[in-house]
């Protein structure tokens, strides 16, 4: 790509982009709870939310009112400061991570002639930054579970530590092979590498699957939702939380789900490039929507694993596979 052809990135454009991300993602993150309930209901041949607004669409607002007006309780022996800070960590890191993720293609607002870049801040180590931020987000559950002086919370945070130890190595190693191929850590470079229509998932199918599995572990989605599994540890790290503090954990979780969807679609599925007659912004929305649907689909279909099974899976199966994948990719790149 010829970088000199692009218009100059102004502060106004970046601010517009940031507002766009914040507005769109937080709206979608809230809306995701509705979609999740609806899809899970359909997969169990139920109707799901139905009565608040047309097709239950306003259920989201009803839930929001409930969360905002609920009494904010801090348990007696809890560490008050950490208890209050923990949900903010989860929500904030989820949105900070989105700052370095390109969502829509760059465009220029007509009439006022403001160039809005595809990414709020194109840091050249974008992938590392985003993964690091999402990993830091797990400090939220970890601290929340330990601060609330509740045995279920403590078990939840212990499981967070296990999860932390398990998936992180797989995420890094699975993304290493595509990084080797592209030769850059910037998401924009990944996107332009696939602009000729060949998606990286064709070269790296194993890395794609490994990244999805690790991503599900990262966002506490169902095969690996050990942190707050109701049947085992009441509600895990959110046992003592209520109201908007609880809501912030979930906005963070759904924002992380979308981030994983964006990363997977940009790194492996061709990003926001135009494809056939579809413009890039439709393609990226379709890909993110499919990956989001896949998460709900998996939740409806598969049982969750035990913590020891997660460690077994990540360290004994996924990590060797990822290492072998990296080695083979390296050999092939040397040969070609």
């Amino acid at each position, binding site marked *: 790509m010829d970088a000199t052809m692009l218009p100059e990135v102004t502060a106004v454009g970046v601010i517009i982009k940031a507002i766009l991300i914040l507005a769109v993602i937080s709206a979608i993150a809230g809306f995701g709870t509705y979609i999740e309930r609806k899809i899970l209901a*359909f*997969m*169990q*041949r*139920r*109707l799901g939310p139905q009565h608040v607004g047309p097709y239950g669409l306003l259920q989201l607002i009803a839930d929001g009112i409930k969360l905002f007006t609920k009494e904010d309780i801090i348990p007696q022996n809890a560490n008050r400061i950490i208890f209050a800070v923990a949900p903010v960590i989860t929500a904030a890191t989820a949105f900070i991570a989105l700052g370095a993720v390109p969502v829509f293609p760059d465009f220029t607002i007509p009439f006022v002639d403001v160039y809005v870049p595809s990414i709020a801040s194109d840091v050249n180590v974008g992938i590392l930054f985003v993964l690091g931020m999402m990993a830091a987000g797990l400090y939220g559950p970890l601290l929340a579970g330990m601060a609330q002086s509740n045995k279920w919370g403590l078990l939840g945070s212990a499981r967070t530590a296990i999860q932390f130890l398990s998936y992180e190595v797989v995420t890094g190693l699975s993304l290493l092979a595509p990084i080797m191929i592209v030769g850059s850590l910037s998401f924009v470079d990944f996107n332009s590498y696939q602009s000729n229509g060949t998606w990286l998932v064709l070269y790296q199918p194993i890395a794609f699957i490994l990244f999805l599995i690790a991503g599900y572990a990262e966002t506490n989605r169902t095969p690996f939702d050990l942190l707050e599994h109701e049947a085992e540890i009441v509600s895990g790290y959110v046992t003592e939380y209520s109201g908007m503090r609880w809501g912030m954990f979930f906005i963070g979780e759904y924002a992380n789900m979308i981030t994983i969807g964006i990363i997977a679609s940009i790194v492996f599925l061709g990003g926001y490039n135009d494809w056939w007659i579809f413009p890039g912004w439709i393609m990226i929305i379709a890909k993110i929507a499919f990956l989001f649907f896949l998460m709900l689909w998996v939740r*409806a*279909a*598969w049982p969750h694993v035990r913590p020891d099974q997660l460690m077994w899976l990540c360290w004994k199966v996924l990590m060797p596979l990822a290492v072998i994948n990296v080695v083979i990719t390296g050999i092939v790149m040397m040969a070609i």
Partner: protein
Amino acid sequence: MSLEKFKNRNVGTQNYKKLDLTHPPKSAWCKFKQVVSRTFKPELCIGLWVTLREMINALFRKKMHTTQYPFEKLPISPRYRAIHEMLRLLESGHYRCIGCGLCEKICISNCIAMETRYDENQRKEVSEYTINFGRCIFCGYCAEVCPELAIVHGGRYETASEQRASFSLFEDMLTPIDKLKLQQEYQGFGAVSPNADDNIKKTPLAY
């Protein structure tokens, strides 16, 4: 015969046949085969397909399980003993009750009270007839004993009320004269529910 044999509930010491229990692989080659088959069997994808199929069934093939209860109700069996109804003769529209008093006599919770008198044609007519639904246990004896099929059990099963003793008068239970055509005849004790055909399912063995 002693009971000892039946009191032994240890699975391991009895002659149970354990189904679906595969034997652990013995040789290294068998282990390898097991690993390969477990790795490449699309079992997870089958799980995904099952849930997707149910979603397609629910959305496009009208196989949604949910009945939105207050708005739509499932038909109940004709054998169901809900709130009583007093039926009319179809030809004349006169109520069927002949004032014999059998229902009052047989009522085991003493909730039916009736008074009768002779009218100008020297026929029995019902002057007072009440059922105390706070006492009624819906045993169905009154409907069973009625020689004229005058008192039957209807289909009104939502019987929550504000008072413990809620009496029902004869006129409340009587079929309205303008709805005589809609009057449902009692179908008898062997009758099946109207949606019986839909409820027929395969036995679990067939799954």
